[in-house]
Protein backbone atom coordinates (compact mmCIF):
# COMPACT_ATOMS: atom_id res chain seq x y z
CA UNK A 1 0.00 0.00 0.00
CA UNK A 2 2.53 2.61 -1.03
CA UNK A 3 -0.12 5.25 -1.68
CA UNK A 4 -1.36 5.07 1.90
CA UNK A 5 2.14 5.36 3.18
CA UNK A 6 2.59 8.60 1.33
CA UNK A 7 -0.70 10.11 2.34
CA UNK A 8 -0.44 9.45 6.04
CA UNK A 9 2.44 11.74 7.00
CA UNK A 10 1.55 14.39 4.46
CA UNK A 11 -1.91 15.09 5.87
CA UNK A 12 -0.94 16.33 9.35
CA UNK A 13 1.97 18.25 7.85
CA UNK A 14 -0.13 21.34 7.28
CA UNK A 15 -1.12 21.91 10.87
CA UNK A 16 2.36 20.84 11.89
CA UNK A 17 4.01 24.13 11.05
CA UNK A 18 1.78 26.04 13.42
CA UNK A 19 2.26 23.40 16.07
CA UNK A 20 6.01 23.58 15.75
CA UNK A 21 5.94 27.28 16.53
CA UNK A 22 3.77 26.49 19.53
CA UNK A 23 6.14 23.78 20.73
CA UNK A 24 9.08 26.14 20.80
CA UNK A 25 7.45 28.41 23.37
CA UNK A 26 6.45 25.58 25.69
CA UNK A 27 7.50 27.40 28.81
CA UNK A 28 5.69 30.52 27.87
CA UNK A 29 2.54 28.52 27.15
CA UNK A 30 2.83 26.75 30.51
CA UNK A 31 2.69 30.18 32.08
CA UNK A 32 -0.29 31.01 29.91
CA UNK A 33 -2.19 27.95 31.12
CA UNK A 34 -1.38 28.98 34.68
CA UNK A 35 -2.62 32.52 34.14
CA UNK A 36 -5.79 31.50 32.38
CA UNK A 37 -6.88 29.60 35.48
CA UNK A 38 -8.23 32.28 37.90
CA UNK A 39 -7.04 30.38 40.98
CA UNK A 40 -3.58 29.86 39.51
CA UNK A 41 -3.34 33.50 38.47
CA UNK A 42 -4.42 34.67 41.93
CA UNK A 43 -1.92 32.29 43.52
CA UNK A 44 0.88 33.55 41.32
CA UNK A 45 0.01 37.18 42.07
CA UNK A 46 -0.07 36.56 45.82
CA UNK A 47 3.19 34.62 45.77
CA UNK A 48 4.92 37.25 43.65
CA UNK A 49 3.62 39.96 46.02
CA UNK A 50 4.98 38.22 49.10
CA UNK A 51 8.29 37.40 47.45
CA UNK A 52 8.50 41.05 46.36
CA UNK A 53 7.77 42.16 49.91
CA UNK A 54 10.50 39.92 51.23
CA UNK A 55 13.10 40.93 48.66
CA UNK A 56 12.43 44.69 48.72
CA UNK A 57 11.57 44.98 52.42
CA UNK A 58 14.12 47.80 53.18
CA UNK A 59 12.64 49.97 50.41
CA UNK A 60 8.99 49.15 51.02
CA UNK A 61 8.88 49.46 54.78
CA UNK A 62 8.01 53.03 55.84
CA UNK A 63 9.79 52.70 59.20
CA UNK A 64 12.59 50.75 60.81
CA UNK A 65 10.80 47.61 62.09
CA UNK A 66 12.86 47.62 65.27
CA UNK A 67 12.62 51.31 66.11
CA UNK A 68 10.79 51.85 69.41
CA UNK A 69 8.38 54.74 69.90
CA UNK A 70 6.75 54.03 73.24
CA UNK A 71 4.82 57.30 73.18
CA UNK A 72 2.78 56.00 70.22
CA UNK A 73 2.11 52.42 71.37
CA UNK A 74 -1.11 50.55 70.47
CA UNK A 75 -2.02 53.09 67.79
CA UNK A 76 -4.88 51.91 65.57
CA UNK A 77 -4.35 52.21 61.80
CA UNK A 78 -3.84 55.80 60.70
CA UNK A 79 -2.22 57.72 57.84
CA UNK A 80 1.09 57.81 59.68
CA UNK A 81 0.94 54.09 60.53
CA UNK A 82 -1.30 52.36 57.95
CA UNK A 83 -1.37 49.18 60.05
CA UNK A 84 -1.03 50.80 63.45
CA UNK A 85 1.70 50.24 66.03
CA UNK A 86 2.39 47.50 68.59
CA UNK A 87 2.91 47.52 72.35
CA UNK A 88 6.33 49.15 71.93
CA UNK A 89 5.22 51.66 69.33
CA UNK A 90 6.92 49.85 66.42
CA UNK A 91 5.29 50.32 63.02
CA UNK A 92 3.27 47.16 62.28
CA UNK A 93 3.26 47.49 58.51
CA UNK A 94 7.06 47.56 58.51
CA UNK A 95 7.15 44.58 60.83
CA UNK A 96 4.74 42.64 58.60
CA UNK A 97 6.87 43.42 55.53
CA UNK A 98 10.04 42.31 57.29
CA UNK A 99 8.08 39.35 58.66
CA UNK A 100 7.52 38.20 55.06
CA UNK A 101 11.30 38.13 54.73
CA UNK A 102 11.61 35.92 57.82
CA UNK A 103 8.76 33.63 56.84
CA UNK A 104 9.75 33.15 53.22
CA UNK A 105 13.46 32.77 53.79
CA UNK A 106 12.82 30.00 56.30
CA UNK A 107 10.08 28.36 54.25
CA UNK A 108 11.81 28.51 50.88
CA UNK A 109 15.21 27.48 52.24
CA UNK A 110 13.89 24.51 54.16
CA UNK A 111 11.45 23.34 51.49
CA UNK A 112 14.09 23.82 48.81
CA UNK A 113 16.73 21.87 50.70
CA UNK A 114 14.24 19.14 51.54
CA UNK A 115 13.11 19.02 47.91
CA UNK A 116 16.65 18.56 46.61
CA UNK A 117 17.43 15.97 49.28
CA UNK A 118 14.18 14.12 48.63
CA UNK A 119 14.75 14.16 44.89
CA UNK A 120 18.23 12.69 45.15
CA UNK A 121 17.40 10.07 47.76
CA UNK A 122 14.12 9.15 46.08
CA UNK A 123 15.73 8.58 42.70
CA UNK A 124 18.51 6.53 44.28
CA UNK A 125 15.94 4.41 46.08
CA UNK A 126 13.79 4.05 42.98
CA UNK A 127 16.48 3.24 40.45
CA UNK A 128 19.35 1.98 42.57
CA UNK A 129 20.07 -1.53 43.81
CA UNK A 130 17.39 -3.27 45.76
CA UNK A 131 19.23 -3.52 49.07
CA UNK A 132 19.85 0.23 49.07
CA UNK A 133 16.17 0.82 48.36
CA UNK A 134 15.30 -1.36 51.35
CA UNK A 135 17.57 0.57 53.69
CA UNK A 136 16.38 3.97 52.44
CA UNK A 137 12.70 3.07 52.72
CA UNK A 138 13.29 1.84 56.26
CA UNK A 139 14.88 5.20 57.14
CA UNK A 140 12.11 7.18 55.41
CA UNK A 141 9.45 5.24 57.30
CA UNK A 142 11.17 5.65 60.67
CA UNK A 143 11.68 9.39 60.26
CA UNK A 144 8.18 10.07 58.96
CA UNK A 145 6.67 8.25 61.91
CA UNK A 146 7.84 11.21 64.07
CA UNK A 147 5.25 13.99 64.28
CA UNK A 148 6.73 17.28 63.05
CA UNK A 149 5.63 19.41 66.04
CA UNK A 150 6.88 16.91 68.61
CA UNK A 151 10.20 16.54 66.83
CA UNK A 152 10.48 20.32 66.57
CA UNK A 153 9.85 20.70 70.30
CA UNK A 154 12.36 17.97 71.12
CA UNK A 155 15.08 19.43 68.89
CA UNK A 156 14.44 22.94 70.23
CA UNK A 157 14.83 21.61 73.76
CA UNK A 158 18.17 20.09 72.85
CA UNK A 159 19.81 22.72 70.65
CA UNK A 160 17.72 25.77 71.48
CA UNK A 161 15.24 27.79 69.42
CA UNK A 162 16.17 29.71 66.32
CA UNK A 163 15.97 29.85 62.56
CA UNK A 164 18.55 27.13 61.98
CA UNK A 165 16.75 24.74 64.29
CA UNK A 166 13.53 25.34 62.46
CA UNK A 167 15.08 24.69 59.06
CA UNK A 168 16.80 21.55 60.36
CA UNK A 169 13.53 20.15 61.67
CA UNK A 170 11.56 20.91 58.53
CA UNK A 171 14.21 19.41 56.26
CA UNK A 172 14.50 16.27 58.37
CA UNK A 173 10.78 15.68 58.47
CA UNK A 174 10.03 16.62 54.85
CA UNK A 175 12.76 14.67 53.06
CA UNK A 176 11.10 11.26 53.57
CA UNK A 177 7.76 12.49 52.20
CA UNK A 178 9.38 13.94 49.08
CA UNK A 179 11.72 10.99 48.68
CA UNK A 180 8.83 8.55 48.83
CA UNK A 181 6.93 10.46 46.17
CA UNK A 182 9.98 10.55 43.91
CA UNK A 183 10.76 6.90 44.59
CA UNK A 184 7.26 5.84 43.58
CA UNK A 185 7.42 7.98 40.44
CA UNK A 186 10.85 6.63 39.56
CA UNK A 187 9.82 3.02 40.13
CA UNK A 188 6.82 3.42 37.87
CA UNK A 189 8.75 5.33 35.23
CA UNK A 190 11.70 2.90 35.23
CA UNK A 191 9.38 0.15 34.02
CA UNK A 192 8.08 2.17 31.11
CA UNK A 193 8.90 1.21 27.58
CA UNK A 194 10.87 4.29 26.72
CA UNK A 195 13.38 3.57 29.47
CA UNK A 196 13.76 0.03 28.13
CA UNK A 197 14.10 1.56 24.67
CA UNK A 198 16.87 3.84 25.93
CA UNK A 199 18.64 0.86 27.43
CA UNK A 200 18.16 -1.03 24.18
CA UNK A 201 20.00 1.81 22.45
CA UNK A 202 22.89 1.56 24.87
CA UNK A 203 22.26 4.39 27.36
CA UNK A 204 24.04 4.12 30.71
CA UNK A 205 22.31 4.14 34.10
CA UNK A 206 23.42 7.66 35.01
CA UNK A 207 22.27 9.01 31.68
CA UNK A 208 18.84 7.43 32.04
CA UNK A 209 18.54 8.74 35.57
CA UNK A 210 19.44 12.36 34.83
CA UNK A 211 18.25 12.94 31.30
CA UNK A 212 15.17 10.74 31.17
CA UNK A 213 13.88 10.02 34.65
CA UNK A 214 14.59 13.37 36.31
CA UNK A 215 12.44 15.58 34.06
CA UNK A 216 9.62 13.05 34.26
CA UNK A 217 9.49 12.78 38.05
CA UNK A 218 10.20 16.36 39.05
CA UNK A 219 6.78 17.80 38.11
CA UNK A 220 4.73 16.31 40.97
CA UNK A 221 7.49 17.32 43.40
CA UNK A 222 7.29 20.97 42.34
CA UNK A 223 3.56 20.93 43.01
CA UNK A 224 4.02 19.30 46.41
CA UNK A 225 6.78 21.77 47.35
CA UNK A 226 4.59 24.71 46.47
CA UNK A 227 1.80 23.32 48.63
CA UNK A 228 4.18 22.64 51.51
CA UNK A 229 5.55 26.18 51.71
CA UNK A 230 2.48 27.42 53.65
CA UNK A 231 2.80 24.52 56.07
CA UNK A 232 6.31 25.68 56.93
CA UNK A 233 5.17 29.30 57.15
CA UNK A 234 2.50 28.17 59.59
CA UNK A 235 4.98 26.08 61.57
CA UNK A 236 7.34 29.05 61.83
CA UNK A 237 4.50 31.32 62.92
CA UNK A 238 3.23 28.70 65.35
CA UNK A 239 6.61 28.12 66.97
CA UNK A 240 7.35 31.85 67.06
CA UNK A 241 3.97 32.34 68.69
CA UNK A 242 5.09 29.90 71.36
CA UNK A 243 8.38 31.82 71.57
CA UNK A 244 10.21 28.72 70.30
CA UNK A 245 10.89 29.94 66.79
CA UNK A 246 12.41 33.17 65.61
CA UNK A 247 13.79 35.15 68.57
CA UNK A 248 12.36 38.60 69.24
CA UNK A 249 12.88 41.36 68.31
CA UNK A 250 13.28 39.94 64.78
CA UNK A 251 9.91 40.57 63.13
CA UNK A 252 7.98 37.42 62.43
CA UNK A 253 4.29 37.01 61.78
CA UNK A 254 4.15 34.56 64.66
CA UNK A 255 5.78 37.00 67.07
CA UNK A 256 3.42 39.77 66.02
CA UNK A 257 0.49 37.42 66.46
CA UNK A 258 1.70 36.58 69.97
CA UNK A 259 2.18 40.25 70.88
CA UNK A 260 -1.29 40.94 69.54
CA UNK A 261 -2.79 38.08 71.51
CA UNK A 262 -1.43 39.37 74.80
CA UNK A 263 -3.06 42.74 74.16
CA UNK A 264 -6.11 41.49 72.34
CA UNK A 265 -8.55 43.57 74.38
CA UNK A 266 -6.72 46.87 74.12
CA UNK A 267 -5.56 46.58 70.51
CA UNK A 268 -7.46 43.98 68.47
CA UNK A 269 -5.99 45.30 65.19
CA UNK A 270 -2.63 43.61 65.86
CA UNK A 271 -4.01 40.08 65.62
CA UNK A 272 -5.94 40.89 62.47
CA UNK A 273 -2.96 42.56 60.81
CA UNK A 274 -0.67 39.64 61.64
CA UNK A 275 -3.20 37.00 60.64
CA UNK A 276 -3.94 38.48 57.21
CA UNK A 277 -0.54 37.80 55.57
CA UNK A 278 -0.56 34.27 57.00
CA UNK A 279 -3.91 33.53 55.42
CA UNK A 280 -3.05 35.20 52.12
CA UNK A 281 0.36 33.56 51.72
CA UNK A 282 -1.10 30.16 52.55
CA UNK A 283 -3.81 30.62 49.96
CA UNK A 284 -1.32 31.99 47.45
CA UNK A 285 1.07 29.04 47.60
CA UNK A 286 -1.77 26.51 47.66
CA UNK A 287 -3.49 28.06 44.63
CA UNK A 288 -0.16 28.25 42.83
CA UNK A 289 0.40 24.55 43.52
CA UNK A 290 -3.02 23.68 42.15
CA UNK A 291 -2.42 25.83 39.09
CA UNK A 292 1.00 24.30 38.48
CA UNK A 293 -0.53 20.85 38.44
CA UNK A 294 -2.34 21.77 35.25
CA UNK A 295 0.33 24.02 33.81
CA UNK A 296 3.06 21.38 34.07
CA UNK A 297 1.05 18.76 32.22
CA UNK A 298 2.46 18.87 28.68
CA UNK A 299 -0.78 17.53 27.24
CA UNK A 300 -2.85 20.38 28.63
CA UNK A 301 -0.25 22.86 27.45
CA UNK A 302 -0.54 21.51 23.96
CA UNK A 303 -4.31 21.68 24.07
CA UNK A 304 -4.16 25.26 25.18
CA UNK A 305 -1.46 26.45 22.79
Amino acid at each position, binding site marked *: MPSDAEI*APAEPARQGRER*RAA*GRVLHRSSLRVLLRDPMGALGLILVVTFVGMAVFAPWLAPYDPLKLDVMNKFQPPSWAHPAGTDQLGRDLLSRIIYGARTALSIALTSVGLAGIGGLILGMIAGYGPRWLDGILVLIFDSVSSLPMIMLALAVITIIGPGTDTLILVVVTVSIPAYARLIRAQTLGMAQS*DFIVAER*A*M*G*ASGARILIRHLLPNVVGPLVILLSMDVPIVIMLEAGLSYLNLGVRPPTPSWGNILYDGYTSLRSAPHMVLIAGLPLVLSTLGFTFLGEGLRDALDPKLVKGGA
Partner: protein
Amino acid sequence: MSEAVLNVEDLALSYPGGVQALRGVSLQVRPGEVLGIAGESGCGKSTLASAMISLLSSGAEITGGAVYLRGENLMALSERDRRRLRGREIAMVFQDPLTAFNPVLRIGEQLVDFQVNAEGSSREKRRRAAAMLSKVGLEPDLALSRFPHELSGGMRQRAAIAAALLMRPAVLIADEPTTALDVTMEAQIIHLLRELQAEVGCAIVIVTHHLGVIAELCDRVAVMYAGEVVEVAPVDDLYHDPLHPYTRALLSCDPSALVEHTGHLPTIGGRLPDLADPPPGCAFAPRCPLASESCATPPPRVRPAPAREVLCHKVAP
Protein backbone atom coordinates in the same frame (compact mmCIF):
# COMPACT_ATOMS: atom_id res chain seq x y z
CA MET B 1 27.11 -21.80 12.00
CA SER B 2 29.79 -19.19 11.68
CA GLU B 3 27.72 -17.33 9.09
CA ALA B 4 25.03 -16.45 11.64
CA VAL B 5 25.07 -12.85 12.84
CA LEU B 6 23.08 -13.78 15.91
CA ASN B 7 23.32 -17.25 17.30
CA VAL B 8 21.20 -18.49 20.17
CA GLU B 9 22.60 -21.73 21.52
CA ASP B 10 20.59 -24.03 23.72
CA LEU B 11 19.32 -21.07 25.76
CA ALA B 12 17.39 -21.84 28.92
CA LEU B 13 15.87 -19.14 31.07
CA SER B 14 13.56 -19.13 34.05
CA TYR B 15 11.48 -16.56 35.86
CA PRO B 16 10.93 -16.38 39.62
CA GLY B 17 8.73 -19.21 40.78
CA GLY B 18 10.61 -21.70 38.63
CA VAL B 19 8.75 -20.89 35.41
CA GLN B 20 10.94 -22.21 32.61
CA ALA B 21 10.17 -19.63 29.96
CA LEU B 22 12.84 -20.87 27.55
CA ARG B 23 13.84 -24.52 27.51
CA GLY B 24 16.87 -25.06 25.33
CA VAL B 25 16.23 -22.72 22.41
CA SER B 26 18.67 -22.83 19.51
CA LEU B 27 18.18 -20.43 16.65
CA GLN B 28 20.40 -18.76 14.09
CA VAL B 29 19.79 -15.41 12.47
CA ARG B 30 21.68 -14.99 9.21
CA PRO B 31 22.86 -11.61 7.95
CA GLY B 32 20.13 -9.74 6.11
CA GLU B 33 17.35 -12.25 6.58
CA VAL B 34 13.93 -11.67 8.08
CA LEU B 35 13.16 -14.28 10.68
CA GLY B 36 9.69 -14.54 12.16
CA ILE B 37 9.02 -15.96 15.60
CA ALA B 38 5.45 -17.17 15.94
CA GLY B 39 3.47 -18.83 18.67
CA GLU B 40 0.60 -18.24 21.05
CA SER B 41 0.80 -15.96 24.08
CA GLY B 42 3.03 -17.23 26.85
CA CYS B 43 5.17 -19.48 24.68
CA GLY B 44 8.33 -17.46 25.27
CA LYS B 45 8.49 -15.32 22.10
CA SER B 46 9.03 -12.00 23.82
CA THR B 47 11.35 -13.52 26.39
CA LEU B 48 13.49 -14.84 23.55
CA ALA B 49 13.48 -11.41 21.91
CA SER B 50 14.63 -9.67 25.08
CA ALA B 51 17.26 -12.34 25.68
CA MET B 52 18.62 -11.69 22.18
CA ILE B 53 19.43 -8.11 23.18
CA SER B 54 20.21 -9.20 26.77
CA LEU B 55 17.62 -6.85 28.24
CA LEU B 56 15.89 -9.25 30.59
CA SER B 57 13.36 -8.15 33.12
CA SER B 58 14.56 -8.32 36.69
CA GLY B 59 14.24 -11.78 38.18
CA ALA B 60 14.80 -13.56 34.90
CA GLU B 61 17.71 -15.94 35.17
CA ILE B 62 19.69 -17.59 32.40
CA THR B 63 20.04 -21.21 33.43
CA GLY B 64 21.96 -22.46 30.45
CA GLY B 65 23.19 -21.78 26.94
CA ALA B 66 24.40 -18.56 25.38
CA VAL B 67 23.63 -15.86 22.82
CA TYR B 68 26.39 -14.96 20.39
CA LEU B 69 26.23 -11.66 18.55
CA ARG B 70 28.86 -11.68 15.78
CA GLY B 71 30.71 -14.33 17.71
CA GLU B 72 30.69 -12.46 21.04
CA ASN B 73 28.92 -14.19 23.88
CA LEU B 74 26.47 -11.59 25.20
CA MET B 75 25.96 -13.48 28.43
CA ALA B 76 29.69 -13.34 29.25
CA LEU B 77 30.10 -9.63 28.50
CA SER B 78 29.96 -6.94 31.15
CA GLU B 79 26.95 -4.63 31.13
CA ARG B 80 29.28 -1.89 29.88
CA ASP B 81 30.31 -3.90 26.85
CA ARG B 82 26.75 -4.88 26.14
CA ARG B 83 25.79 -1.20 26.12
CA ARG B 84 28.45 -0.62 23.50
CA LEU B 85 26.81 -3.24 21.24
CA ARG B 86 23.26 -2.07 21.70
CA GLY B 87 22.14 0.41 19.12
CA ARG B 88 25.17 -0.21 16.93
CA GLU B 89 25.03 -3.96 16.40
CA ILE B 90 21.57 -4.79 17.65
CA ALA B 91 18.51 -2.65 18.22
CA MET B 92 14.91 -3.16 19.14
CA VAL B 93 11.44 -1.87 18.24
CA PHE B 94 8.77 -2.31 20.86
CA GLN B 95 5.17 -3.30 20.81
CA ASP B 96 3.56 -0.09 21.99
CA PRO B 97 4.74 2.97 20.08
CA LEU B 98 2.74 5.19 22.42
CA THR B 99 5.12 4.59 25.31
CA ALA B 100 8.37 4.05 23.45
CA PHE B 101 9.43 7.70 23.70
CA ASN B 102 10.18 9.89 26.68
CA PRO B 103 7.11 12.14 26.93
CA VAL B 104 9.03 15.24 27.99
CA LEU B 105 11.66 15.29 25.23
CA ARG B 106 11.16 16.18 21.58
CA ILE B 107 11.59 13.38 19.04
CA GLY B 108 14.66 15.13 17.66
CA GLU B 109 16.34 15.36 21.05
CA GLN B 110 15.69 11.68 21.64
CA LEU B 111 16.98 10.59 18.27
CA VAL B 112 20.17 12.53 18.95
CA ASP B 113 20.28 11.05 22.40
CA PHE B 114 19.95 7.50 21.10
CA GLN B 115 23.27 7.96 19.29
CA VAL B 116 25.06 8.24 22.60
CA ASN B 117 27.58 5.60 21.55
CA ALA B 118 28.18 6.99 18.09
CA GLU B 119 30.86 9.41 16.99
CA GLY B 120 30.17 12.81 15.52
CA SER B 121 29.02 16.23 16.62
CA SER B 122 25.48 16.78 17.76
CA ARG B 123 24.79 18.61 14.52
CA GLU B 124 25.91 15.55 12.60
CA LYS B 125 23.74 13.32 14.78
CA ARG B 126 20.79 15.57 14.16
CA ARG B 127 21.37 15.36 10.43
CA ARG B 128 21.56 11.58 10.68
CA ALA B 129 18.28 11.57 12.62
CA ALA B 130 16.63 13.75 9.98
CA ALA B 131 17.83 11.47 7.19
CA MET B 132 16.49 8.40 8.96
CA LEU B 133 13.15 10.07 9.65
CA SER B 134 12.66 10.86 6.01
CA LYS B 135 13.54 7.25 5.21
CA VAL B 136 10.67 6.02 7.36
CA GLY B 137 8.30 8.42 5.63
CA LEU B 138 8.11 11.27 8.13
CA GLU B 139 8.85 14.87 7.24
CA PRO B 140 12.09 15.32 9.18
CA ASP B 141 11.95 19.02 10.07
CA LEU B 142 8.50 18.53 11.42
CA ALA B 143 9.00 15.29 13.30
CA LEU B 144 12.25 16.42 14.92
CA SER B 145 10.62 19.29 16.77
CA ARG B 146 7.54 17.39 17.88
CA PHE B 147 6.82 15.94 21.28
CA PRO B 148 5.86 12.25 21.18
CA HIS B 149 2.23 12.90 22.08
CA GLU B 150 1.89 15.15 19.05
CA LEU B 151 2.39 12.20 16.70
CA SER B 152 -0.17 9.52 15.89
CA GLY B 153 0.46 5.89 16.78
CA GLY B 154 1.55 5.00 13.27
CA MET B 155 3.85 8.02 13.04
CA ARG B 156 5.35 7.18 16.40
CA GLN B 157 6.03 3.60 15.33
CA ARG B 158 7.76 4.96 12.23
CA ALA B 159 9.82 7.23 14.47
CA ALA B 160 10.63 4.28 16.73
CA ILE B 161 11.83 2.29 13.73
CA ALA B 162 13.92 5.27 12.64
CA ALA B 163 15.39 5.39 16.14
CA ALA B 164 16.27 1.71 16.09
CA LEU B 165 17.93 1.92 12.68
CA LEU B 166 19.86 5.15 13.39
CA MET B 167 23.19 3.46 13.83
CA ARG B 168 22.54 0.84 11.18
CA PRO B 169 22.59 -2.20 13.43
CA ALA B 170 23.28 -5.65 12.04
CA VAL B 171 20.19 -7.05 13.73
CA LEU B 172 16.85 -5.37 14.38
CA ILE B 173 14.53 -7.06 16.84
CA ALA B 174 10.89 -6.12 16.50
CA ASP B 175 8.69 -7.32 19.34
CA GLU B 176 5.11 -7.29 18.07
CA PRO B 177 5.73 -4.02 16.20
CA THR B 178 2.25 -3.86 14.71
CA THR B 179 0.07 -5.32 17.44
CA ALA B 180 -0.94 -1.93 18.81
CA LEU B 181 -1.74 -0.51 15.38
CA ASP B 182 -4.81 -0.79 13.19
CA VAL B 183 -4.86 -2.89 10.04
CA THR B 184 -3.95 -0.22 7.49
CA MET B 185 -1.12 1.04 9.69
CA GLU B 186 0.04 -2.53 10.12
CA ALA B 187 0.28 -2.96 6.36
CA GLN B 188 2.24 0.28 6.05
CA ILE B 189 4.68 -0.64 8.80
CA ILE B 190 5.25 -4.09 7.30
CA HIS B 191 5.84 -2.51 3.93
CA LEU B 192 8.24 -0.04 5.52
CA LEU B 193 10.19 -2.72 7.37
CA ARG B 194 10.67 -4.67 4.16
CA GLU B 195 11.87 -1.59 2.30
CA LEU B 196 14.27 -0.61 5.05
CA GLN B 197 15.56 -4.13 5.39
CA ALA B 198 16.50 -4.08 1.73
CA GLU B 199 18.14 -0.68 2.10
CA VAL B 200 19.95 -0.95 5.42
CA GLY B 201 20.67 -4.64 4.95
CA CYS B 202 20.13 -5.56 8.57
CA ALA B 203 18.66 -8.84 9.69
CA ILE B 204 15.21 -8.50 11.25
CA VAL B 205 13.80 -10.75 13.90
CA ILE B 206 10.10 -10.13 14.15
CA VAL B 207 8.08 -11.52 17.00
CA THR B 208 4.37 -11.73 16.32
CA HIS B 209 1.33 -13.88 16.78
CA HIS B 210 -0.06 -12.54 13.51
CA LEU B 211 0.58 -15.18 10.88
CA GLY B 212 -0.31 -12.80 8.08
CA VAL B 213 2.55 -10.50 9.06
CA ILE B 214 4.94 -13.41 8.92
CA ALA B 215 3.72 -14.60 5.53
CA GLU B 216 4.06 -11.08 4.20
CA LEU B 217 7.47 -10.20 5.58
CA CYS B 218 9.60 -13.15 6.59
CA ASP B 219 12.09 -15.41 4.87
CA ARG B 220 12.11 -18.01 7.61
CA VAL B 221 9.83 -18.80 10.51
CA ALA B 222 10.49 -20.29 13.91
CA VAL B 223 7.40 -21.59 15.66
CA MET B 224 7.60 -21.65 19.43
CA TYR B 225 5.60 -23.69 21.85
CA ALA B 226 6.02 -23.85 25.64
CA GLY B 227 9.51 -22.34 25.64
CA GLU B 228 10.86 -24.44 22.79
CA VAL B 229 11.30 -23.88 19.08
CA VAL B 230 9.22 -26.71 17.67
CA GLU B 231 9.65 -25.99 13.99
CA VAL B 232 11.93 -23.85 11.82
CA ALA B 233 11.25 -23.61 8.11
CA PRO B 234 11.38 -21.27 5.11
CA VAL B 235 8.15 -19.31 5.07
CA ASP B 236 6.63 -20.95 1.99
CA ASP B 237 7.36 -24.47 3.19
CA LEU B 238 5.83 -23.71 6.54
CA TYR B 239 2.57 -22.44 5.11
CA HIS B 240 2.21 -25.08 2.42
CA ASP B 241 3.58 -28.05 4.26
CA PRO B 242 3.57 -27.56 8.03
CA LEU B 243 5.17 -30.58 9.67
CA HIS B 244 4.75 -30.13 13.40
CA PRO B 245 1.21 -30.82 14.60
CA TYR B 246 1.29 -27.58 16.58
CA THR B 247 2.20 -25.55 13.49
CA ARG B 248 -0.66 -27.20 11.67
CA ALA B 249 -3.07 -26.40 14.48
CA LEU B 250 -1.83 -22.81 14.67
CA LEU B 251 -2.30 -22.28 10.93
CA SER B 252 -5.78 -23.72 11.01
CA CYS B 253 -6.71 -21.28 13.75
CA ASP B 254 -6.04 -18.26 11.53
CA PRO B 255 -9.52 -16.84 10.93
CA SER B 256 -8.49 -15.44 7.56
CA ALA B 257 -7.76 -19.00 6.37
CA LEU B 258 -11.39 -20.01 6.82
CA VAL B 259 -13.11 -20.83 3.59
CA GLU B 260 -16.64 -21.53 4.74
CA HIS B 261 -18.86 -19.75 7.15
CA THR B 262 -18.72 -21.43 10.57
CA GLY B 263 -20.60 -20.77 13.75
CA HIS B 264 -17.47 -20.81 15.86
CA LEU B 265 -13.81 -20.06 15.26
CA PRO B 266 -11.34 -22.93 15.31
CA THR B 267 -9.19 -23.20 18.44
CA ILE B 268 -6.60 -25.59 19.78
CA GLY B 269 -8.13 -27.72 22.51
CA GLY B 270 -6.49 -27.84 25.93
CA ARG B 271 -4.03 -25.27 27.18
CA LEU B 272 -0.33 -24.57 27.59
CA PRO B 273 1.42 -26.87 30.06
CA ASP B 274 2.51 -25.44 33.39
CA LEU B 275 6.01 -24.23 32.65
CA ALA B 276 6.97 -24.40 36.31
CA ASP B 277 6.68 -28.15 35.96
CA PRO B 278 6.87 -29.02 32.26
CA PRO B 279 6.07 -32.58 31.14
CA PRO B 280 9.15 -34.75 30.56
CA GLY B 281 8.19 -35.65 27.01
CA CYS B 282 6.74 -33.59 24.18
CA ALA B 283 5.07 -30.49 25.64
CA PHE B 284 2.38 -30.48 22.97
CA ALA B 285 1.43 -34.15 23.39
CA PRO B 286 -1.59 -33.52 25.67
CA ARG B 287 -3.18 -31.36 22.95
CA CYS B 288 -1.86 -33.29 19.98
CA PRO B 289 -4.21 -35.41 17.83
CA LEU B 290 -1.31 -37.64 16.81
CA ALA B 291 0.06 -38.28 20.30
CA SER B 292 1.00 -41.82 21.24
CA GLU B 293 2.99 -43.48 24.01
CA SER B 294 6.32 -42.54 22.44
CA CYS B 295 5.45 -38.86 22.94
CA ALA B 296 6.07 -39.22 26.69
CA THR B 297 9.80 -39.11 25.96
CA PRO B 298 11.63 -35.98 24.77
CA PRO B 299 11.02 -35.55 21.05
CA PRO B 300 13.98 -35.78 18.64
CA ARG B 301 15.15 -32.87 16.53
CA VAL B 302 14.41 -34.05 12.99
CA ARG B 303 15.75 -32.45 9.78
CA PRO B 304 13.38 -33.59 7.03
CA ALA B 305 14.86 -31.12 4.54
CA PRO B 306 18.12 -29.13 4.50
CA ALA B 307 16.58 -25.90 5.76
CA ARG B 308 13.96 -27.41 8.02
CA GLU B 309 13.95 -28.57 11.61
CA VAL B 310 11.12 -30.13 13.57
CA LEU B 311 10.91 -31.24 17.15
CA CYS B 312 8.54 -34.20 16.93
CA HIS B 313 8.36 -37.98 17.21
CA LYS B 314 5.87 -38.23 14.41
CA VAL B 315 7.87 -36.62 11.62
CA ALA B 316 9.96 -38.95 9.50
CA PRO B 317 13.53 -37.71 9.02
